């Protein structure tokens, strides 16, 4: 009895070894998209079904907040995957240490690079080399509640277009008895806070290496006024974008700045809402928004760089991209290629997506800078100092400018 068992185990063992030797290579891909999107599951399944004999894609979901820690540990121990998705402002720090394969030649041969949104594409270039491709492009715009506009005697078809109008509307829409505030945004002590505030700095004529321009100070003053006057909740400094937006979805705020990733929160709401471009500074009139999205990089340590590139080319071919972004994701995310995003009958026909695509033209990438997290943290501290009254907007941004100086020498 026992001998039979041993024999059985041995045979099983041998067959499993041989089958693993014979099988096609397995490429590991780390993805951070929230699992409700099903994007990568579908993509990997589709590839494995059709081209699994060449190589297969194996997925591992890594929570976005853990990704950089996981990836750096993996690099240290040589257990990094073949492909990885990473938030675009953090792409540069890993490109900087040479973690990604140089895809410049392959991309040039392919010849599709100029179809991508410019800002998104710039975020995969570091030191003049192409290290990956953007996998989605997104940005933020202004949501507003049309029913609340009507109640406050405002025209639901003319949302605020400038900061002064935003301020004026914010005040009019605030109804303390109904527990309702005019506006909500995200000033969290995380990348999300920087993501939402940076466009205002840029609209004020500032930038990360010139953060204390009068316009930028006015931008921080604007945010601070909203909190000080109770037109926005003081909790905006401690909630992420999703939670900040739930105040809008639950009708505790009448206007909100956010991106397409929160649209699902509006699936079952009973009010009428609209979406419009980010308001601009009255005097400067500079359009700007934040560029979000993820990049897909091929790791330098991967044995299967050519295979990884094949997979990327397939995923970003017109047919597959339309299928993945339009059919699988239901058009809720904007594809990184402008030619596909602007195809007739798709995203541009959808009122909401059309606004995001228009806004995307003014979206500016964060960085690229290998020390982006530190820069971002200095900006977050300045926002907090001003919004909590610890410093005036001017003092907060002047101090931030001093702290930021060494990063741009």
């Amino acid at each position: 009895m026992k001998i039979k068992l041993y024999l059985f185990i041995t045979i099983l063992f041998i067959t499993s070894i041989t089958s693993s030797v014979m099988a096609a290579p397995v490429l590991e891909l780390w993805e951070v998209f929230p699992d409700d999107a099903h994007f990568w599951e579908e993509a990997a399944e589709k590839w494995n079904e059709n081209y699994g004999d060449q190589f297969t894609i194996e997925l591992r979901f890594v929570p976005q907040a853990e990704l950089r820690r996981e990836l750096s540990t993996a690099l240290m121990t040589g257990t990094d995957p073949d492909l990885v998705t990473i938030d675009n402002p953090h792409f540069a720090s890993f490109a900087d240490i040479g973690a990604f394969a140089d895809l410049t030649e392959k991309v040039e041969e392919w010849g599709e690079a100029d179809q991508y949104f410019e800002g998104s594409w710039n975020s995969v270039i570091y030191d003049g080399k192409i290290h990956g491709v953007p996998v989605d492009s997104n940005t933020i715009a202004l949501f507003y509640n049309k029913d609340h506009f009507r109640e406050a005697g405002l025209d639901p078809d003319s949302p605020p277009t400038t900061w002064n109008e935003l301020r004026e509307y914010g005040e009019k829409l605030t109804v303390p008895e109904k527990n309702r505030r005019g506006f909500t945004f995200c000033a969290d002590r995380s990348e999300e806070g920087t993501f939402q505030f940076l466009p205002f700095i840029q609209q004020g004529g500032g930038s990360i290496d010139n953060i204390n321009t009068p316009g930028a100070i006015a931008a921080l003053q604007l945010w601070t006024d909203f909190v000080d006057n109770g037109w926005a909740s003081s909790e905006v400094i401690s909630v992420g974008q999703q939670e900040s937006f739930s105040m809008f979805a639950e009708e505790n705020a009448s206007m909100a700045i956010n991106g397409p990733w929160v649209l699902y929160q509006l699936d079952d709401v009973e009010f009428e809402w609209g979406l419009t471009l980010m308001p601009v500074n009255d005097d400067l009139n500079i359009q700007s928004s934040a560029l979000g999205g993820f990049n897909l990089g091929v790791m330098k340590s991967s044995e299967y760089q050519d295979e990884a590139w094949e997979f990327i080319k397939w995923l970003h071919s017109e047919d597959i991209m339309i299928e993945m972004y339009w059919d699988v994701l239901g058009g809720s995310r904007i594809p990184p290629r402008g030619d596909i995003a602007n195809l007739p009958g798709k995203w541009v026909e959808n009122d909401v997506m059309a606004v995001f695509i228009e806004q995307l033209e003014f979206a500016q990438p964060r960085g690229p800078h290998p020390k982006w997290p530190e820069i971002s943290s200095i900006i977050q501290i300045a926002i907090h100092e001003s919004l909590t009254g610890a410093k005036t907007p001017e003092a907060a941004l002047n101090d931030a400018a001093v702290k930021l100086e060494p990063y741009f020498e």
Partner: protein
Amino acid sequence: MKFSIKKDQNNFYFKMLVPAVLFFIIFIIYPIYFNIRLSLEDATLRTIMLPQRPFIGLENYLTIIRDPLFKKALINSLIFTTGSVFFQFTIGFSLALFLFKKFPLNKFVRSSIILGWVLAPIVVGTVWSWLLNSDYGLFNYLLKSLNIITQEIRWLTNPNIALRGVVITNVWFGIPFNMLLLTGGLSSLPQDIYEAAKIDGTNTFQKFIYITLPLMRQTIGATLMLGVIYTFRVFDLIWVMTRGGPVNATTTLPIWSYQLSFDFFNLGEGAAVANILFMIMLVIALIYIKFFAGKEE
């Protein structure tokens, strides 16, 4: 598989020690050594993949100490720890004394209190950040309905109050642990002394001061000591509630160390903060050993 225990007794005992010693070396000594080495190296994302990172001596420690945030984080850590431990201990001790008395539903009350301790810090942090929310939080609602306050307290979003907000949460979280240890201590006290005291006509207060406290010395020392160590290194609770903000109002040493290591990837500096934390704990542990442990007459 035969061996004589008598013959190989000493040998056998040493063999039995091997797993424990190995465990100690691999999981305790090596990480401490690795962290100390890391703190003396120029360890950033840029040097992480090199086989040999450049040795820079005490440079990381100097950078840390020169940073104005060091003083802030150290003071925050001290306030957080003393505040938490003081209230956890006094409330925990009161509850232990109360629940030591026999009354109906005693077991039910005791297990309900302990339930809080079973929760993960992430859960406690999330729930309490809702409770302390200035817009819809239960705390402000109660205080307002009782006419204690007229204006909302921004528990977690006012830099002058936020540290109190996280201390309140941590006190709630730590009470069951203190209560449990002290109840254990109370139940091991010899009852005949209390009977003798009763005959001598002592009142409850005297019994507590002259009998319970001195006899509980060991347990109290251990409870406070463990409380300090557990509280000093609290990370997840604060991270979930405030991420060290607003501004840097709740940035303690563990929060700062995490931010340096895994947000900025200045791993050397993060390790230096962690080692300073380790040194502080070591001093506390030595004080405890000298004054409390192993001194039973």
